[in-house]
């Protein structure tokens, strides 16, 4: 059954069933933007407390799946059900942000919250609430700074703070570590892990198999279809990776972690890589 384009935020329809603990459930989901399908027959359930990484090559449908789970893209075929009244937040790619837009950190965090407010502007009491969220994410005292005047990791955390400030139960992050250095990437990963341990459900997309995906409890390998889903040790295997990325890959063990590398090539032009 197709979802109405006018109201993509329909909660669980009467008669639809969600498994116990499930917050969002995609069933036989296919999506097309008028041409070939971007997603084909995807089944995916997001449960409370999940920390899921969606991986796949460019054009594999990662961002589309993220937006379909959010309810922002209607299914062409299949359905996405979500728990009634579920609050969700989206953290965009930092590359898509207009860093010259005149907005302070405090204004940025406050802009997404519209309900339960007496005034459109940020009052003293609301400022204290925003400071509390900023402090939780290590951004204490930065509310009056312009968003451009922050480090890469701080910028990423401002948008995480914006999503948290809406009391989101599920947060979606689109390539959260794209463009970040190794140390900052590490910090963001630890922050997401801490938030997840505090009860926040997190779904993210990433290109970074070794830096991010291998550290997550659940990985979904996507190439229009779900090629594999589960724990890293079950999913980060050569067969699944080759089907996902379309080229041979090897998986090495290092310090108890799985490390994905390109399989050696034997082309006479390139020699052995």
């Amino acid at each position, binding site marked *: 059954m197709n979802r109405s384009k006018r109201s993509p935020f329909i909660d669980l329809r009467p008669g639809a069933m969600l498994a116990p603990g499930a917050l969002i459930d995609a069933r036989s989901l296919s999506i097309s933007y008028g041409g070939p399908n971007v997603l084909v027959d995807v089944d995916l359930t997001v449960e409370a407390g999940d920390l899921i990484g969606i991986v796949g090559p460019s054009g594999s449908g990662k961002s589309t799946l993220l937006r379909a789970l959010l309810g922002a893209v209607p299914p062409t075929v299949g359905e996405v059900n979500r728990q009634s009244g579920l609050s969700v937040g989206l953290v965009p790619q930092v590359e898509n942000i207009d860093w010259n837009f005149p907005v302070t950190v405090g204004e940025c965090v406050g802009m997404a919250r519209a309900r339960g407010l007496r005034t459109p502007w940020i009052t003293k009491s609301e400022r204290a609430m925003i400071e509390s969220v900023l402090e939780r994410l290590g951004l204490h005292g930065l509310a009056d700074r*312009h968003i451009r005047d922050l480090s890469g990791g701080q910028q990423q955390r401002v948008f995480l703070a914006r999503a948290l400030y809406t009391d989101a139960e599920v947060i979606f992050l689109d390539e959260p570590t794209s463009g970040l250095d190794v140390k900052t990437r590490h910090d963001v990963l630890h922050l997401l892990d801490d938030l997840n341990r505090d009860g926040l459900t997190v779904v993210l997309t990433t290109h970074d198999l070794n830096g991010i995906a291998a550290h997550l409890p659940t990985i979904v390998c996507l190439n229009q279809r779900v090629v594999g889903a589960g724990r890293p040790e079950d999913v980060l295997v050569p067969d699944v990776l080759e089907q996902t990325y379309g080229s041979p890959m090897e998986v090495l063990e290092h310090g108890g972690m799985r490390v994905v590398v390109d399989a050696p090539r034997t082309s006479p032009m390139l020699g052995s890589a």
Partner: protein
Amino acid sequence: MMLAVTWAELLKPFEFEFFRNGLFVATIAGALCGVVGCYVVLRNMSYIGHGLAHAVFGGYAAAGLLGINLFLGAGIWGVITALGVTSIVRRRPIGSDAAIGVITTASFALGLALVQLYGSPGRNADALLFGNVLGVNSSDVWLISAVSVFAIAVIMGFYRPLLFTTFDAEVAGATGIRTGLIDALLMVLLSATVLATMSVMGVTLIAANLVIPAVVARMLTDSFGRMLGYAAVIGAFSGFVGMNASYHLDVASGPTIVLVASLLFVVAFAAGGRLRQRAGAVGHAH
């Protein structure tokens, strides 16, 4: 021209009701355009503001010909044009700037043709095109007052969704904000602002009143809330001083108001590197 005038000469025009009306409308219109212009500029929609002003002229002329209320006819015409433009911008079947150019200039051309064929309804064509303090009457005062109340209600009522949609439309839409509704609301507000400002600014110069105060305000602050406030003050100041200059220099009010605002831009631009950096951050100003 001799610019040295006495205090009494400066205050003389205040004796005339038409001038007091014009000054009131120009000052309030400046503040209104300043605030609405912040959204227009930050969305890189300066061209829509410019085009819409021209489109409203067509509606004004057509309403005069059809014998219906000029403001109502022009307002409805403007809203329809604005919503049409928004729809094109969202769907992008062709370049949005080209589509805006076609729709709004066609409407302007229609207005010019109708004015030449049947005469200008209500006021002369020069006043409509370039603004004229003599063209301001009590209905303009009521109109600008009503539109200002409407603008305050819209901006207060939808402050955060408007900001969120202006800053980050995709995420706003993905997390539940009805961005189409917000865009439409802004277009209605923009149409009403253009209509209410037409008498003092003239259709050809309204875009400057929308853009310049917002750009100068952007140069002065990195905060969105403060930008709105600064733009309102800069717009009101430009309107007040420009209208006085219009009387004393015997020049149409639209150009003098724009020149005052432009002078403020030059001062702010010359003031320092940080301000210039912010000026470069503002989207293209038409």
